């Protein structure tokens, strides 16, 4: 029976949330709770499938598994819906399952146009799944855009504006900026994809299939010059979504303006699409270009780490701190990728997973605080532990994971990234470690300022996290600790993916 399930599991990963989104449209309009519960149901099914898929991935056998191919457009474009999962996609599928369910649960507080919200959120989830499991550039791009498409409305309609006193960062601004910058990235990716297609067409085998294109590349069908200009398109195009400096500015503004559930998904999973794209498309299909450009990428990644951390240091708004912290942490991912070293790359993938969980947890907890206090200014909030003990505890764990405390998932991931970087680009690795130290400063300062210390009487009325929030937070904390203590189940899978990703060099 499981063998039969393997035949359709990947297709279900995309179809379940997509069908869920379509069905949600037909729910009654005036019963927000029904929409929420139905979305939980859909996300729970997706979650279960994700877990099963991850567990069924046979890391001893490695390679691309659960492959299925459905013809779509024939000659001469030769596009097919080719599904398949490798060792890098598998943990990210799991991550998406976890974060999607968490985000849907947390979105209990959405009461306005609830139905529409979940339609878009589930569509977003489907898009993210799609990118991780397809082996065809057309569909990879299709799902990539599908994941970006709902963002404008999700932020614009349900988001919140931030008043900086002297100026206002409206949600409309955040939404528009995010959408345009991300689609600008897609422009580069699209041109890159077409360039590879043209190369395959000139070689007499027009295709968008990733594995066939990789094969053609190995046979020398793609000229070195092409690779040299196409790789930067992929690196920057996908990099934009991964928060690559200096194209990262959409990310803090977008994350802050988004409602909690969307911030969780976006920082937690969507940014990983970018890093995944660099590995899966850029490195695999244009390795010669990658080799030449990687020193630049690791330089930018290091800037990400330092610049993001320093920016986080100077923010007062809790959500902006986390937003810039994401930029900083995605820097580790980029550094790890750019080392082209097995340990560094594995660290990068593990960091994607670990950061996905911890940043989602942080956004969830900040959302809980904002929901009650209607404010996110860390100078005005204080002594939250008195009234919101559980929330504080969860936030603290996530914060400690992000500063790399041993025993939590962040430590192992960052340690591996640094190991890879020390062996390849020593000076940059040192800078990266300094970035980690700055992270410790802003996280600990934030904890001390807002969560611990004297409580202001104006926060007397705050209540602690709701049962749903506690449940989500608790589950995420367990995952952070579990991965920190026993990362082998993830690393075994990741290492097979890393080995095949590096085999083209």
């Amino acid at each position: 029976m499981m063998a039969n399930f393997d035949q359709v599991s990947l297709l279900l990963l995309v179809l379940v949330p997509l069908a869920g989104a379509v069905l949600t449209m037909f729910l009654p309009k005036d019963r927000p709770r029904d929409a929420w519960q139905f979305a939980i149901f859909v996300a729970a099914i997706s979650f279960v499938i994700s877990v099963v898929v991850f567990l069924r991935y046979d890391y001893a056998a490695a390679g691309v598994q659960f492959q299925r191919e459905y013809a779509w457009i024939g000659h001469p474009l030769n596009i097919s819906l080719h599904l398949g999962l490798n060792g890098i996609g598998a943990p990210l599928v799991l991550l998406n399952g976890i974060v999607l369910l968490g985000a849907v649960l947390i979105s209990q507080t959405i009461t306005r146009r609830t139905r529409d919200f979940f339609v878009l959120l589930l569509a977003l989830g489907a898009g993210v799944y799609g990118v991780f499991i397809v082996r065809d550039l057309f569909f990879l791009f299709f799902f990539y855009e599908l994941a970006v498409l709902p963002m404008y409305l999700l932020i614009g309609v349900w988001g919140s504006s931030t008043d900086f006193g002297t100026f206002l960062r409206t949600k409309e601004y955040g939404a528009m900026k995010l959408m345009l910058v991300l689609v600008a990235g897609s422009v580069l990716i699209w041109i890159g994809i077409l360039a590879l297609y043209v190369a395959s067409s000139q070689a007499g085998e027009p295709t968008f299939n990733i594995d066939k294109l990789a094969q053609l590349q190995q046979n020398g069908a793609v000229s070195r010059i092409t690779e040299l200009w196409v790789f930067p398109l992929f690196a920057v195009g996908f990099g934009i979504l991964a928060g690559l400096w200096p194209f990262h500015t959409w990310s803090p503004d977008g994350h802050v303006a988004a409602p909690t559930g969307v911030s969780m998904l976006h920082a937690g999973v969507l940014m990983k699409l970018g890093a995944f794209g660099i590995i899966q498309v850029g490195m695999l299909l244009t390795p010669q270009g990658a080799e030449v450009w990687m020193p630049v990428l690791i330089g930018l990644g290091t800037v990400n780490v330092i610049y993001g951390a320093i920016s986080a240091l100077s923010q007062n708004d809790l959500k902006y701190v986390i937003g810039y912290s994401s930029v900083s942490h995605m820097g580790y991912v980029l550094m790890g990728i750019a080392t082209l070293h097995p340990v560094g790359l594995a660290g990068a993938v593990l960091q994607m997973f670990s950061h996905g969980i911890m940043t989602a947890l942080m956004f969830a907890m900040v959302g809980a605080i904002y929901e009650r206090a209607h404010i996110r200014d860390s100078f005005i909030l204080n002594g939250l532990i008195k009234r919101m003990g559980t929330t504080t505890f969860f936030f603290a764990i996530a914060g400690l994971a992000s500063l790399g405390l041993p025993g939590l998932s962040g430590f192992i991931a960052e340690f591996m990234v640094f190991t890879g970087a020390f062996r390849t680009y020593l000076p940059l690795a040192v800078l990266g470690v300094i970035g980690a130290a700055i992270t410790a400063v802003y996280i600990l300062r934030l904890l001390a300022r807002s969560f611990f210390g004297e409580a202001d009487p104006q926060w007397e009325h705050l209540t602690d996290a709701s049962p749903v929030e506690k449940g989500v937070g608790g589950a995420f904390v367990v995952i952070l600790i579990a991965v920190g203590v026993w990362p082998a189940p993830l690393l075994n899978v990741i290492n097979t993916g890393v080995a095949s990703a590096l085999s083209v060099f």
Partner: protein
Amino acid sequence: METGLTTNLHLLTPEFALTALAFLVFTVDLFLPERSKEWLAGLAAASLLAVIAVALLMRPDQSAELYGGLMVVDGFGLFFKIFFCAIGLGIIALSVEYGRDRLQHRGEFYGLLLFSILGMNLLAMSRELLTAYISLELLSFSLYVLVAYGLREARSNEAGIKYIIIGVLSSAIMLYGLSNIYAALGTTYFTEIAADLAAPGDASPVLWVGIALLVVGLGFKLSAVPFHMWAPDAYEGAPLPVTAYLAIGSKAAAFALTLRLFAEAIVPAAARWDEWQLVIAVLAAITMLAGNLVALAQRNLKRLMAYSSIGHVGYALAGIAVLGSDFALAAKGVIFYLVVYAVTNLVVFAGITAYYNREGKDNIADLAGMADRQPFVAAAIAIGLFSLAGLPIFAGFTAKFYLFAAVADGGMLWLAGVAIFTSLVSLYYYLQVMRQMYIERPAHAEHNVAAHQEHAEHDNIHQHAAHDEPDPPIPPLQRPSILLTATMGIGLLVVVWLGIYPAPLLTLIETASAAILPLG
């Protein structure tokens, strides 16, 4: 070309039928009282359905020439005939409610619509310059009148005058081009032009002037930049269903002519003479850039759609520019794009019409709060705009991907790059419309919101979230008419279907484009 008695006139039955039915509409109009004029919409729609049925029943097994080669009945013509009639059905659906108190002479309106479709059908079958010219004029003259049919609308009359003056000017330019071509080559048949172009020896300057003027004339009809200046005014002034018709029908028809002209007259000579590819490519690039960039500055929805449609013409022209390399792929890309563009625009215009019928406003800012007032219409417009911007799971994404892949494969990756970049630009102005519909609130509701914010400031709350404050309710509008709802519903289904599974349509298009496949 051999001439003689034409014995296969029965092949033109659909066209004869359409002519007769158009006259029938005019005649019945004379006897119908004003309150029953809506029956004419039904009659016109039935006529189009009948023509589609006849055309399908009589579809020829192979291409058959008529009148000694002036026209041809083939798969390409059949495909476009059905396509045009379907567009006509959509336009009729848009017109019924709108026409009740916003159109003059509704009977004539539907009759002229049928005549214009007849012109389009003949255009898709022409393979000789003068026949094509006459068909084009039949289409254009119907449109000149239709544009000016707005009731008590000064804008509509102004648009009609501008449109006819520029239109006649472009016709004159085209006609002068035709006469030059005839002077140089002694023929107006597409295939003979191709043979003469491909023949060795220097072509005379008269020929180049002729071809250049022909392209300019086509550029006017397609509203390619820099021959587009009539379009925004005509679009803005015309009654909404006619604006939709200009955007969809006249563009599709002009591209049908362009495709056949290039396929039969110019592409076969590509081996000897391929400079035209660069000319068209540059024209396409300017059209995309200018159309999409100028659209950014628009405040009126109809003008916005005018510039947006200019941008889309640029994309399709990019496909024309690479017809010389892989003809089948490029032609399929262009036709696929035209179909998707037509369906998507029909959905958007149906939505705009539904809103206009209730509100009587057509500025972008007037759409504020639409998502609360007419949720389905807002969703239809939003999906249509996402599709036009080229986002999945909608047809626009698939069509753009297909077309741009064809352009890149034809050796013009740079042009595909320009197209992709201008798609990004277009996303910005489509999102502005989206923003009005989904995020902004109508002006008369603003008072309450302002009061609300003041209140919040007194509470010394520095940050506030819009979703914390209960919005004062906006009264919903009366539902759109069933006909418009159905048009949007069917259109949306097609948009999603073509976005997810376009293979069946592509098979049909394959047959159509195979009919004009240049030899050799």
